Structure formats: C-alpha cells, structure tokens
C-alpha cells in the first residue's frame, strides 16, 4: 500500500474518479491529468474517491500523541466528511518535505493547511452539485459526506460528485467554518487506530517483514575509541542460523535468519573490549565541570535592567540545582529494516526525523537522498529519541555489507547504554531583595550542552536567539522581577545526547519553579499566591522569540488552586502539597497541584495531581487528557525513579531494573481540567505536560519534609529515626 502511494495518486486522478488536492507548504494545488504526469507529487494531499472514501496523507509520525486522529479530525471538520470513511496514508520524505515530528508542533503547523484543503474540496463538491441540479450554490449545503439541497430535498453523496468536482476551479482561499459550527473539532473522538492497536494488528517498526529479510544484532564499542581485544568469530558462526559476521567501523554485526540467531550469535562473539582510558567520560567529573560553569557569566540570553527608582538589593539568596542524565527507554527499542541495492536503498523505520534519516543514509551510501525510499512506521514510543537516526544508518551499513535486506534490532541494554541521552545540566539561581524585603532581581544561569545528534553548523550565527533555543524555561521566566538576567554556559559533552520529551525545558523549569518556591518561602508567602502576585503587571511579555501571556498562566494557576482545594502547601505530618506552572514556548500553559506522602522509611509517593491546561483551541479533548496523564507519569519517573550515570565512558544502566520507570503502583489519582482558551488555534500537547510536574513534586516533598530538593531523582536518604544513636 505504502510503496504504491504515488501510483495510487496518479491512478486516482487519471481515472477521473477522484478529487485530489495537495496542500504542501501552505499552498493548495489541484491535481489534474496534466499535473500528475509531471511535477505534481505533493507530500500532503487529500483524495476523495468515487466510492465516497476519503484518503488523507499524514505527514506527521504517530508515536502515541494521537496525531493521526487529530489531524484527520481537522480535515473532516472542514470537508464535512463522514468520519467513518476517512483512511490514512503515511507520507514519505522528499526533497522539499518537512515531515519531522517534534517540538509539539504538529497541531499548530497543520491546523491551517488541513482546514484549507478540507474547505476547498467541500466548496468544489458543492459547486459540482449545484451545477448538476442547476440551482444557486448558496442554497446547497455539505453535510456528513454529501451535498444537500434542502429546498428540493435532494442529496448527492460526495462519491457521485468527485468526477465533476475535479473539473471545478480550485478555491485557493476557501471560506473556513466558524468555531461555533464545529461538529468534530472539540468533541471527544476515539482514536482512529484504536481497534488495530487492541487487536494486535498495528504495525510498528519491529513488525516490518520484507521478502528475504535477515535479522541483525550489532555489538557496539562501549565507549568512544574502544578497540576489540578478543572475539570468538568462529563460535558466532557456529550458532545455527547465523549467516555472517560483519566487522564495521561502528561495531561487529551478526546476521542470521532469525532474531534469536542474531542475538545468540552476538553473545557467542564474546567480544572483549579494551579498557577505557583514565579520562573516559564520567558523570561525576562532568557534574563538577557543570557546577563550576554555572558560576560563570556565560552568554546572556536575557537582560532586563531594573526600572529607574527600583530599590537597591540589600539581601540575596542563591541555590544550585542539579539535573541528571536520563534515557528515553521507549518500550519498542530502536530498530530498522534496510534494503540496500545498487545505487538505491529502501528503509522502514519508526522515525521522527525522516528527512534527516534519508540524508544520513544517503551520505553513508554515497547516493542521492531521493534514492533512499523511507517508509515511516508506527512508533512504539518516541519521546525525542527517534529524532536521532543512528539506528537506521547502522541498518543500512549492515544491509550493504550483508547484500540482503536486514532488520536491525537493539536489545534493551543497547537501548539504555547507547541512547541519545537527556543531558545533565546545573543551574545557578539567585534572587535579590530590597531593604523592605521585596524581590527585585532574578538570575538564572544554565550550564548545559548543545545536542550532538547531528553536527552543529559552525557558520550559524550564535546570537541570543540561538542560545535561547538551548535554554527554554530559563530565559522566558514569566515572573515580574524588576531586574532579570538569564545566561547559558556551554560545557562540552562527548557522549551522545539529544532531544528528550520537552527537550531543554524540564531541567530549567525544575530549577526555576523550585527556586521561586524558595523565594516565596523567604517572603513567608504562600507559594501559589506568590506566583500569582509575581504574574501581575503587563499581561503579555516578550522574551526573545517567545511571547508569554501571563493572563493564561494565571488562569491555569487559579484553576488548580480552586479545584484542588489549595489551602497552603503543608497538609499534615508526612504529607505535603506542591505547586508549579509553565508556559511552554508561550503556547501551552499548564499548572499542577501535587500531593505527596512520605512514609517512615522516607519513601515518597505521589498521591494526587490536579492539573489545569490551556493548549489553545482543543481539537480532541481525550487526546489532551491522555497527554496530561502521560506527562505526569513521565514526571513521576524522572522525579522518583531512574537516572543514567556514566563511568569509563559507558552508561552504567542496562535495563528497567536499574533504570526504573513509573509503574501502575506509582500512579497518582489524576484530575485534569481543560481551561477555556482565548487562543483561536490549537497548540501541542506531547511535551508541555512534562516540565512543571517534577518541580511540583519536589515542592510537595519540601512541604512534607522541610527538605529542599535540588537534585533528581529525589532521594531523601535514611530517615533520622532509622539511624543508630552512634551515627
């Protein structure tokens, strides 16, 4: 189905039995017999067939954010389509496509083009019907996959109109529906792929099987520069099903006729790697570097001078916050099917970055990107990990050497140890107070590292905007301190690291939202009331390219205050309540009130979370709720469960046993409130729920114990009563 995508389009148009509209790059284009023979090869298109079915290409990758459903909803709304007749096709990358899925951008960027495409098709279908009936098109209406003429009671299904509609002049700026007329958008809609998922029929990367496919497992150097000391190549070849042992610069691949043969063959290799050098990467040493760096001035990403008349600082408080390395640990480990032939290659991959994949595989093989045919599969958890394409490049390299299509599957240990980790960072914060005790200055310096999943362009202008991009949640501090200085200090990080759910925001927002609690505490103020107080003043503030609407942030704070029964942070002995909020890129606004309990052994449990979200116009409420719940659980994992540490250049964790993640027993009661929004368009929900949950948990732990949490994951250590009298 997928490989014949363009052939499908051509057949549909040439047969004259379909209406096809492309919507790449914000411009509508109509497919005609002449154009499909030539340059009309859009990545985004909608096709309405004579049988009444509607085929929509989805350019975004589905990894659990529900994007297939929500994008189809937007199209169906404007098209007045029958929801049950919508079918989806996954788009493929091409020279001018931009199918990358990340940054919680899918809704914001697809909203307008999909509405326009749906509306244009609707208008053309109405024109076709009115012409056939010889009536004024203004008296016709599109309803549920058909055009109706209520005066005469006539009705024509879309399928019977497409041939005529395809000859109607394309409406380039069709009228869009009023939000008050929405029948699908804003309504609870079941996932379009739900039945396939619960029936075990949904096909992820790992499920791809192509004729003649072999299976591969790759033994990689445990640290950069590691050399093979010994290996048992013969033993590996003796394993039944093993076809070949291939030595590549990136590791030693075992290729077999089954997954198990490849895994067993790799084990039989028993590779002994050289010892790491003394200066191999070590996370403790890196922490020290980050800590030192956090006290440097760095690149100032935002500087707001105090207005004249601001009183001098007479007192300063400061704190350093430490944020660790984390793995993504999606349940589907990295995998890819590659079929390298003479001068071309076909890839099937669960990827968030199909264009990057295409480019890097082409580079490896010395062929043109257009000769790398990339098929995007369902993704069993993305979280930013699959913006890196290392596993696809490996698969192509192995397929080329094996001269066969191969599926490369990473083991769980491979996935934990060889990931593109969330990088550690250290944050120095200080707040200044005047003689009357009023807060007058805020300073936040983040010491972190630039991503290295693809090389940085040395010619790129490294201005404030560039540095701001590495410090979301830091430079865009929403609070009304008269003086603000934020800065970024880059520290070299030689291990692979890249985007993780919410990218740069979680560390900065953890530090910011915990430290604002410290400031409130210093004022003797209620931390929630203090935040609201500090969000007064101008409703809209600009910080670099980000516009923060304090009104929207106040509203989510007020909502969780009212809905949680907030009555101060302290609840009772061993129980505490915490608050945190964030404006994600100035787009999606979220606040949480978290209740935690701390037992006599200092075990922390998140009991209850009340969340409020303003993500603009809501397309699918169930999708918003799911992402809030999922973001909360993600935060429970990073606040209370595993972290990654490095020694000898290697991650020391290898499984869900030593990199623990939240389980059902760790799941709090959750109450999600979607706040009515002034924003006329939808914003993303995959990432925004994550950043404020960890600081809300940390602040609740403080409320319960009196211990400030400045390191993650949170460990309170042995309770005092458990120590022997001699200690």
């Amino acid at each position, binding site marked *: 189905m997928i490989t014949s995508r363009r052939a499908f389009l051509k057949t549909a148009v040439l047969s004259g039995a379909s209406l096809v509209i492309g919507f790449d790059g914000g411009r509508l284009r109509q497919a005609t017999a002449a154009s499909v023979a030539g340059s009309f090869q859009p990545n985004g298109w909608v096709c309405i067939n004579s049988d009444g079915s509607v085929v929509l290409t989805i350019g975004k990758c*589905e990894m*659990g*954010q*529900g994007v297939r459903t929500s994008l189809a909803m937007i199209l169906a709304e404007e098209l007045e389509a029958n929801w049950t007749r919508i079918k989806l096709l996954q788009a493929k990358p091409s020279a001018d496509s931009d199918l990358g899925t990340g940054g919680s951008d899918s809704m914001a960027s697809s909203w307008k083009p999909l509405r326009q495409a749906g509306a244009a098709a609707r208008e053309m279908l109405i024109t076709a019907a009115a012409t056939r009936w010889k009536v004024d098109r203004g008296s016709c209406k599109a309803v549920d996959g058909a055009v109706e003429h209520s005066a005469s009671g006539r009705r024509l299904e879309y399928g019977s109109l497409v041939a005529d509609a395809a000859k109607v002049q394309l409406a380039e700026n069709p009228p869009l529906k009023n939000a008050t007329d929405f029948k699908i958008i804003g309504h609870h809609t*079941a*996932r379009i*792929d*739900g*039945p396939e*998922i*619960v*029936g*075990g*029929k*949904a096909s*992820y990367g*790992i*499920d791809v*099987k192509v004729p003649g496919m072999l*299976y591969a497992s790759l033994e990689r150097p445990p640290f950069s520069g590691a050399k093979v000391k010994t290996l048992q190549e013969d033993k590996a070849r003796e394993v*039944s*099903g093993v076809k070949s042992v291939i030595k590549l610069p990136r590791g030693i691949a075992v290729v077999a006729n*089954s*997954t*198990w*043969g490849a*895994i*067993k063959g790799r084990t039989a290799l028993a590779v002994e790697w050289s010892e790491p050098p003394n200066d191999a990467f070590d996370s403790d040493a890196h922490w020290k570097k980050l800590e030192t760096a956090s006290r440097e001035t760095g690149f100032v990403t935002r500087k707001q001078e105090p207005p004249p008349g601001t009183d001098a600082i007479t007192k300063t408080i400061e704190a350093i916050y430490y944020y660790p390395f984390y793995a993504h*640990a*999606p*349940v*589907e*480990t990295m995998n890819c099917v590659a079929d390298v032939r003479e001068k071309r290659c076909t890839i099937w991959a669960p990827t968030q970055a199909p264009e990057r994949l295409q480019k890097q595989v082409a580079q490896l093989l010395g062929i043109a990107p257009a000769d790398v045919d990339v098929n995007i599969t*369902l*993704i*069993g*958890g*993305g979280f930013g990990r699959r913006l890196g394409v290392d596993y696809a490049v490996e698969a192509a390299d192995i397929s080329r050497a094996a001269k066969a299509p191969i599926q490369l*599957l990473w*083991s*769980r240990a491979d996935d934990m140890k060889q990931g593109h980790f969330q990088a550690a960072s250290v944050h120095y914060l200080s707040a200044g107070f005047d003689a009357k005790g009023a807060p007058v200055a805020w300073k936040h310096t983040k010491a972190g590292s630039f991503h290295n999943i693809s090389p940085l362009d040395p010619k790129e202008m490294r201005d404030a905007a560039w540095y701001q991009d590495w410090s979301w949640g830091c430079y865009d501090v929403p609070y009304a301190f008269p003086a603000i200085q934020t800065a970024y200090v880059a520290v070299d990080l030689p291990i692979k690291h890249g985007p993780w759910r919410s990218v740069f925001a979680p560390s900065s927002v953890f530090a910011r939202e915990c430290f604002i609690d410290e400031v409130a505490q210093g004022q003797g103020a209620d931390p929630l009331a203090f935040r609201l107080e500090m969000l007064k003043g101008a409703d809209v503030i600009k910080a670099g390219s980000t516009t923060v609407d304090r009104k929207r942030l106040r509203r989510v704070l007020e909502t969780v205050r009212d809905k949680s029964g907030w009555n101060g942070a302290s609840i009772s002995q061993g129980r505490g309540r915490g608050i945190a909020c964030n404006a994600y890129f100035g787009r999606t606004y979220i606040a949480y009130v978290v209740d935690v309990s701390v037992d006599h052994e200092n075990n922390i449990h998140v009991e209850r979370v009340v969340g409020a979200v303003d993500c603009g116009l809501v397309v699918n409420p*169930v999708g918003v709720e*799911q*992402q809030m*719940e*999922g973001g*909360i*659980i*993600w935060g429970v994992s990073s606040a209370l469960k595993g972290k990654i540490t490095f020694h000898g250049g290697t991650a020391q964790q290898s*499984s*869900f*046993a030593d990199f623990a*993640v*939240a*389980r*059902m*027993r760790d*799941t709090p*009661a*959750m109450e999600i409130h979607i706040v009515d929004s002034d924003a006329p368009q939808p914003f993303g929900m995959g990432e925004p729920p994550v950043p404020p949950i960890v600081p809300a948990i940390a602040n609740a732990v403080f409320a319960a114990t009196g211990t400030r949490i400045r390191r993650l994951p949170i460990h309170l250590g042995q309770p005092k009563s458990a120590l022997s009298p001699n200690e």
Partner: protein
Amino acid sequence: MSKIDFTVNAARHVVEADDDTPLLWLIRDNLALTGTKFGCGVGVCGACTVLENGKAVRACQIPASEASSRSFVTIEGLSPDVSHPCQRAWLQEEVAQCGYCQAGMIMTACGLLHENPDPSDEVIEKVMSDSVCRCGTYSRIRKAIRRAANEMRTKKP
C-alpha cells in the same frame, strides 16, 4: 535444532528451532504473529505476555524446548473482531497512546481476570505493576480492567 510442536490460537504448528529459542521469537518470526511484542527479553516489562490455559505467561521466558505440546493464545487469538471484553474496555476507556505495550497489558489483564474475576484495586495494582508503559496509560488501564471485570461478571449466569 529440534522440531517444536505447539499450538497457538488453536492452530497447531511444527517449527524447527534451537531448544533455547524463546517462544516470543517463534511467535513473531516463525509464525509472523507480530502483535506479541519484544520489550526487554528478560521478563521485566510484560510486552510479550500471552495466555496459556487462561493464565498470563511471558513469551520471552519460555524456551522452545519447553513450549512443545503446549497451547498459547496471543492478542490476535483473543477475538477475531476486538470483541473480547478487555479489548472493548480498552477502547471504551481510550487507553492506548503509542499502543506498543497494550497487547501485553491486555493479556496480563486477561490472565488476572481469569484467576480473579473481581480483583480489588490493590490486586490490579500489584499484578499490573509488573508491566511497563512508558506513555503512562496506567490510570486508564486500571479503569479498563474494572470495566471488563464488571462486564464479564454480569454476563456469567
């Protein structure tokens, strides 16, 4: 290599495999039933859970040598049309996000309800905490299990 003679979804299969090949890979590679997922290979994530006599077992922990003459049900065999009470409850509670772990979750829930048709929240939590969902769908899984349990009990005479 041995001949492994086993039954999956009521169909008998004879495959050639090494004795130590985990049942998971026989199901996925030999039988091409890919609904049963690989997640960890060491029995700690639950993605590969299948049923044997109604009980949940982990396919990555059963070697081929022990699979012979046994009978298993995978997610594909639970119902032909996603009509099993657990599958329907999963849809009604809108559980899935990426969906990758959900086949294992559903099979684990089926095993739980087979042994305990009216599990308390504590029991649900204890049993289901042996499985990993990185999207964080646990609260909906809990609701779906309660819903399925109710439906299965009321249907019984």
